């Protein structure tokens, strides 16, 4: 089983080091929490893992495959899904259509086949639709399949992004502050969903500010501060670490 690994990565913006010699790995079937104060480099690390920025130093690997120079689309094709801090949805399309976008990596039909509605293109569409419907019902959005994405409230948008990520048949999913702006009840639903993802064998990396939520569901936790790794280990260890408390968790 392949592990997703960021090895000794560094990233500078201008003169500032957003990340300095950070290593992190995500295993299939586990939840790895990533916490830290604002500006500690959490989202930057996500962006490096998913390929939006190139690393300045270090490497990104998926098992044996070196992804360091791989572009975003290649990583998606290899099963690395992600959500974004501010949901990036297609406002004019429906919930179902947005989710079906996630099935794109699995499609095989080219331009001509699509233009002429040949069987392979129609099959891509049908299987994408069926899979997306099932996922949406599973995630709890089955009542609003046809609603336009711009009409969704915040929680629905976040869950939709996760649904889209799942449509990709991911082996890993990187969640960027999925609990941001959610109510207690919604966080509960989110927890149950993320645990189901883990139990299905997906490797989950969660960047979060909601520390209770993260400690509750994570198998491992990594803390970042000012671009460097602070503490790494089981949730209880990290929670009790004096440095982590001083820098982030507070008195």
């Amino acid at each position: 089983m392949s592990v997703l690994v960021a090895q000794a990565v560094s990233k500078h913006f201008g003169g500032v080091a957003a990340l300095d010699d950070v290593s992190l790995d995500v295993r299939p079937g586990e939840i790895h929490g990533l916490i830290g104060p604002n500006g500690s480099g959490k989202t930057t690390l996500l962006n490096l893992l998913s390929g939006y920025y190139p690393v300045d130093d270090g490497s990104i690997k998926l098992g044996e495959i070196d992804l360091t120079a791989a572009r975003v689309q290649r990583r998606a094709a290899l099963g690395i899904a992600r959500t974004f801090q501010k949901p990036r949805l297609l406002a004019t399309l429906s919930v179902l259509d947005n989710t079906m976008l996630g099935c794109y990596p699995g499609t095989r039909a080219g331009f001509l086949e699509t233009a002429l509605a040949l069987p392979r293109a129609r099959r891509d569409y049908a299987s994408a639709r069926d899979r997306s419907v099932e996922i949406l019902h599973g995630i709890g959005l089955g009542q609003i399949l046809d609603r336009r994405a711009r009409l969704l409230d915040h929680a629905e948008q976040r869950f939709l992004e996760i649904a889209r990520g799942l449509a990709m048949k991911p082996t890993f999913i990187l969640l960027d502050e999925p609990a941001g702006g959610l109510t207690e009840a919604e966080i509960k639903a989110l927890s149950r969903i993320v645990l189901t993802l883990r139990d299905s064998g997906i490797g989950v990396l969660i960047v979060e500010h909601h520390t209770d939520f993260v400690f509750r569901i994570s198998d491992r936790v990594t803390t970042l501060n000012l671009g460097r790794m602070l503490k790494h280990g089981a949730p209880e260890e990290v929670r009790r670490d004096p440095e982590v408390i001083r820098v982030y968790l507070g008195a």
Partner: protein
Amino acid sequence: MTDSRFRVAAIAVAAAAAIALPFFVADQYQLHLATLIATYWILVAGLNVVVGFSGQLSIGHVGLLAIGSYAFTILAGQHGVDPFIATMAAGAIGATCGFLLGLPSLRLPGFYFAMATLAFALIVGELSLAEQDLTGGGAGLAVPGFPAPFDTPGGFYWLVLAMAALVTWVTANIARLMWGRALVAIRDSEVAARANGVPVFRMKLLVFTFSGFTAGVSGALFASLQTYVTPETFTFELGLFFFIAIVVGGRGGILGPFLGLVLLTLLPEVVAPLARVGNFFYGALLLVVVLAVPEGIGHLVSTLRERFRPIKVEKQPVSPDLTRLATAIHAGKRG
């Protein structure tokens, strides 16, 4: 479902009306106008995929129209090539030029790309004036017609109608199947497109090349319809007209831009003062739409409904069905 059966019925009725049109128009001019709209639509349908779906703001497509027109005229008129073959050749040449134009410019940000297409249109105009031996320069060239039964106005109308229907069917496929969502992602959130494996540049280039093909075919039929082509026919304003029809009609759909095209072509015919004001009107209409209904008139109904929607339907909390979710995830497990 009744919704899709209604759609099929509506399309059937519209198709019947379109086919029967030559029999109930008042005069030749109206038939000519209808044929012109159908000819334009072949270009606009292809351009719609580029502008309305992938969000690339090409304002210079008139250049590709001109290339198609001249290609047809030179091949069929001066070298005696069969008009049908010449039309397909015009399409192929249009596609090639679209490809060559798109290759360097589709990587550029929006304004740069729009300016590149504008420059392209002006260059085509320049070259068609300058290359007198090829294009007849300012004097232009006479364009042959098609053989019977397409040599009558009615017959030619049906030929164009058939091509227009085919192109519409193709663009409907692109919109409806997976490419449609990928293109909208390119338009509205390139970040999301990439995150979902969409090959952004390759897709933009492919649809742009396709739009070059439709522009080339449209150019061939347009030239034959007008029976004479000069560089003056292919003004930048004409290219802008196609573009505005799409934006006013509504991006992200097919019916919208078609209605936009019909509206923009017919309004100056029906409302005389608009004819005098011409392109000013198109500019003003574009401005009004962009400021008031940016999604276009085609979406007017749904936009209004959303804005004046009564108190929202009672919100249901998101309640996942975990077993169903687990099954769905496992259904697609990678090997």
